[in-house]
Every structure is written in C-alpha cells, then in structure tokens.
C-alpha cells in the first residue's frame, strides 16, 4: 500500500531545448542501472531479507519510484514539443517510429527493459551487496549524464539524484553491517 503525493520529490526544470539529452536520460529510466530496475529490485528483495533490514530496503525502493518520476518528467519536457525532424536529428527517429513521443522502458541504446537486469538471490549479504553496487552504478550514470549537458537546471536535478544514490549506498552498507554484527555478543548496558 502506498500513498501518492501529486508532486515531485525535487523540482525538475529544463531550460534548454535539447531532445538529444532525452535520449541519454532514458538510460536512467529503463536501463540496467536505472531507477525502474532499482525500485523493482528492492521492492522484490524486501520479502525475504531479515526483518531488521526490511524497512530500509522498502523505503529506498519506494524512493526510487519517486526518482523514476523525476527522470520521466525530464524526458517528457525535453521531447514533448519536438517535431519528428528534430527527433530524427536527436537520434530518436527509431523511438518515434515505434512509440511516437510516449516514454518507453529501454536504455539509451534502445534495448528494452528486462527483469534480468537485477537479481534476488535470497542470500541477504549477496542481495545487499548487489544493492550497494547498484547505487554506485547509478551514481556513476548520473555523473556521465551531468558531463553531457550544460543545462544548469537539469544539472541541479541530476545532482540531487546523484546525492541520493550516495545516501542510499551508505544505508545499504549499514544494513550489511547490521547483519554481519555478532548476534551472540553480550551487551552490557
């Protein structure tokens, strides 16, 4: 059960008409290290993790859906007013032929999204370490996206999303530490 708030987690402003950037941003929408893969990975893994780390995985998985919305908003704003000619010029001709201006879950190279992008191993350490790696890969993707644009408003939103990857990585690392901690230790208060 979720409660939906009809607003973005962080404002998305796009100040430059640049449909080609939409083509690259779609990597974070339907790519292997994108927000959809992240959300589905965490929201699926949470059932079979030890109880003390379920809440953090649930919360982060939910936040990834908010990030997905932000990326979708960026892509939509960058393409909604483009002509077919502009889309062809931006390298989005193949996308337009299949989807018009609808968003679709594929990566920047056009490969459609697949559940094989992520794993649910059932081993809590294996799963949490995959989650840490996923956050670092998403952080790197945001870096390369920031390197590819000079739109300061877009960079502002992407910088926020990258910072969230840092915080998520930290929390997954802490979750793994909690599971590593010796449960037999006698604590003296």
């Amino acid at each position, binding site marked *: 059960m979720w409660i939906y708030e009809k607003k973005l987690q*962080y404002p998305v402003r796009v100040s430059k008409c640049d449909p080609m950037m939409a083509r690259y941003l779609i990597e974070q929408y339907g790519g292997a290290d994108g927000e959809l893969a992240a959300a589905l990975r965490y929201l699926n893994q949470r059932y079979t993790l030890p109880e003390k780390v379920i809440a953090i995985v649930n919360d982060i998985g939910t936040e990834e859906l908010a990030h997905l919305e932000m990326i979708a908003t960026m892509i939509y704003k960058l393409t909604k007013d483009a002509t077919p000619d502009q889309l062809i010029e931006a390298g989005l001709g193949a996308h337009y032929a299949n989807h018009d201006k609808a968003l679709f879950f594929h990566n920047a190279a056009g490969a459609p999204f697949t559940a094989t992008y992520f794993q649910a191993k059932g081993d809590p350490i294996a799963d949490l370490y995959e989650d840490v790696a996923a956050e670092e890969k998403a*952080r*790197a993707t*945001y*870096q390369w996206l*920031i*390197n590819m644009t000079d739109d300061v408003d877009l960079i502002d939103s992407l*910088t*926020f*999303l*990258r*910072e*969230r990857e*840092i*915080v998520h*990585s*930290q929390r997954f*690392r*802490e979750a793994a*530490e909690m599971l590593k901690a010796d449960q037999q230790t006698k604590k003296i208060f």
Partner: protein
Amino acid sequence: MYTTRKSYTPFVGPFDPCPPVRVKTYETPPQLYMGFQPCGLPQFQPKEALRHGTLWPALFAPYTNPYEQGGNRE
C-alpha cells in the same frame, strides 16, 4: 581527511591517434569511508537538506564535470 576525487596519470603511448588525456580522475564519495554512521553528526537546516539531498554534511559530496575548466578538485 579524504578527497572525493582521485587522479592518476596513465601511460601515454607515442603512436596513439588522439591527443592524450594526461590526468584521469575518478570519484571517491564519502560513503566509502564512513562505515556505520556515528551518532550526533552535524545536520543541515531542513530547507538546506531538502535542496542538497541529504541531511548530513558528512555525506554531501556534489559532483562537478571534470572535463570542464576548473572542474578538477583534489
């Protein structure tokens, strides 16, 4: 104190086709060093925290394009 960007100087061959990149960089953000977050760390003001994407100055590590002039931090 750690740095959030490291650099190295790769080998530059005499027969490479493109002008060489003499210094390469990679990011090493704070979560790599923190371990389990200690209690009582300083916090941003709420509005600042919402802007930055974190409540914790110790986890705040904004990124700049290293290909741009002055983008290199060390």
